[in-house]
């Protein structure tokens, strides 16, 4: 797994790539929570994620929870098929705000 963070349309966009598994999800988690802790509305771009396991999904859930606590926006962007499959298995596909790309989010108020 690798990731980068960019500012786009008022959001911090964390783009994850590769395999987000127990070994590598702590990095993803840190990147996501880091953006939120800095007060950014945050999107996670999952287009390049070939594999994600429950620890990776847990990092996304943590992001969502922290965002709610801090009254920040949080969403998923360009969710790969592999990721959507796992979100569905975890019954989380309707819990997250999901858009094909960052422009699908209205931009922070």
């Amino acid at each position, binding site marked *: 797994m690798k990731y980068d963070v960019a500012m786009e349309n008022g959001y911090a966009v964390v783009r994850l790539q590769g*395999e987000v*598994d*127990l*070994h590598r999800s702590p990095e993803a988690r840190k990147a996501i929570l880091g953006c939120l802790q800095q007060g950014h509305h945050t999107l996670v771009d999952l287009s390049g994620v070939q*594999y994600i*396991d*429950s*620890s990776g*999904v*847990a*990092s996304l*859930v*943590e992001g*969502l*929870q922290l965002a709610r606590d801090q009254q920040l926006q949080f969403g998923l962007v360009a969710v790969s098929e*592999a990721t959507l*499959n*796992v979100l569905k*298995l*975890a*019954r989380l596909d309707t*819990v997250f705000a999901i858009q094909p790309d960052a422009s699908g989010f209205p931009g922070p108020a």
Partner: protein
Amino acid sequence: MTEPLIRFEIPSRADRLCLLRRVVRETIRLAGCDDALADDLVLAVNEACMNIMQHADTGTYQGPIEIEILARDGMLEFLLRDYARPVDVTSIRSRDLDDLRPGGLGVHIIGEIMDEVNFLPPPEGRGNLLRLRKHIVTGVQR
């Protein structure tokens, strides 16, 4: 007795899950699984190994994880063996998914994907033996 397709072992370390997934995928692809089914089965076996890495001996287990994959009776069978203290099977349950919190997803995911999930008595009375089974429709090459 059916000869396993493969028997292999990895250390109980998160950085070996990547290889585990590749070995499982190659094995079940040769056994006739299509990509979508392979994705699911790889995920389920990965989650079961994660659970050993995270929870066996309350997270301190350092020993090997042995995996055996068999094809028989129109079924793929995955046997996962560890040498940790026997798990209290009643403690293994999926949480209520409506209660949004990180974690507690692995057992649910395994159950969604697999047709049968059972702890069996381990061969020499030590450790744990988890059996995951999945009926498959495609012709399995033996």
